[in-house]
């Protein structure tokens, strides 16, 4: 039967034998250069720490105002949720919904799934039948999570507005930055292959 050290490259389908790959190392496809396998350092514990930090930051990051502007004695501020609701009110329902999915729902699902699955791995409860369908949601949400793009959007809005009015920032932007970083670090720490292998072996 098949040896578990054999992988096919996802981009060129080359069969590759991978032996003795240690934590922190990665294997690249010799033909097309695709990263076939990446083993992460201390993946389970790090992912638990990062995803719980991300979940703590979730509500402040989306509800607290990211920034405020002041001009002619009037002040106005906006949070991520307010941005979505004002698009909804200006009848841009599709745009409002896509931002809701890309910047709120997808990151939230990724954090919840990563936390649940990694905690189960830590406690050796990999036999639970619902873990596999749950972890598939992490993969599904991966393409559509765009927090880092929204972060660049914040920076561009700042530059666009800075000559027009007086800008001020509150704790909201700090929460959002760390929330975005939690997604980035989760991507770097979560070891998908390790999780699939352990979920499969635990059955």
């Amino acid at each position, binding site marked *: 039967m*098949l040896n578990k050290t*054999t*992988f*096919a490259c*996802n*981009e*060129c*389908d*080359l*069969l590759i034998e991978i032996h003795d790959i240690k934590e922190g190392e*990665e*294997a*690249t496809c*010799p*033909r*097309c*250069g*695709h990263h076939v396998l990446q083993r992460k350092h201390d993946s389970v514990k790090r992912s638990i720490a990062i995803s719980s930090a991300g979940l703590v930051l979730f509500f402040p990051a989306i509800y607290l105002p*990211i*920034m*405020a*502007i002041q*001009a002619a004695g*009037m002040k*106005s*501020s*906006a*949070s991520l949720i307010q*941005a*979505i609701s*004002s*698009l909804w009110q*200006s009848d*841009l329902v*599709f*745009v409002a919904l*896509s931002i809701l999915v*890309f910047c709120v729902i997808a990151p939230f699902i990724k954090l919840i799934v990563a936390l649940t699955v990694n905690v189960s791995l830590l406690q050796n409860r990999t036999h639970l039948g619902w873990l*596999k*369908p749950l*972890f*598939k949601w992490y*993969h599904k949400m991966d*393409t559509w999570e*765009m927090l880092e*793009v*929204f972060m*660049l*959007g*914040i920076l*561009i*809005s700042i*530059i*666009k*507005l800075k*000559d*027009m*009015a007086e800008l001020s920032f509150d704790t909201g932007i700090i929460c959002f930055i760390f929330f975005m970083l939690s997604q980035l670090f989760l991507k770097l720490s979560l070891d998908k292959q390790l999780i*699939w292998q352990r979920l*499969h072996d635990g059955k």
Partner: protein
Amino acid sequence: MTESKDVINPITAKEKGLAQCHLCDYLVPYEEQNPHQKCPRCGSHIEQRKKDSLRRCWAWTITSLIAFLPANFYPIMTILYFGKGQPDTILSGIFTLLKFGMYPIAFVVFFASFVVPLAKIMGLFYLLYSFERRTELTAKQKTKMYRYIEFFGRWSMLDVFVVALLVALVELGSIVEIVAGPGATAFGIMVIITMIAAHYLDPRLLWDKEKIDDSK
């Protein structure tokens, strides 16, 4: 990691009668007679190559080219000073930025909102065309191109996010207000369509094609 120039005698999973799960990377013997083969590890549908990859990619890429037009011709937002203002499309917004001397940011917006989506659509057309004719680029170069197309796709949502923030933020009574336009919807739809188009293209087909060409 070193990348050798040529792998001598490359053997693919398909040639060995194997298929790898697209979701969890589990390698299984491919059952050609069974159209409903499921991955024993994660339960996803198993296929050696993405089904109808080229046909679907053609359809979605043509759609995204059509969607590119309203995305750039409809106004994405209007800045109202004392209730009056000119609607801005993506391109006229960039010209406004240039007029005020904000060159770096005009470049970023131009790149993310105009160059990237257009290059992405053109790139997909080129890759699809390369299946019809022999082209100069090698499969390796085309795979690299495909990787960039996939990676940069999401960054085109940038302008939509900027509009969302500005609309929520700039509401200072009757003095100045920013209103979003239908271009924001058209633009968001265009970005999502190009992402789907890129998703349907199976890069492994590029290598299959190269092997057939070389053996001729």
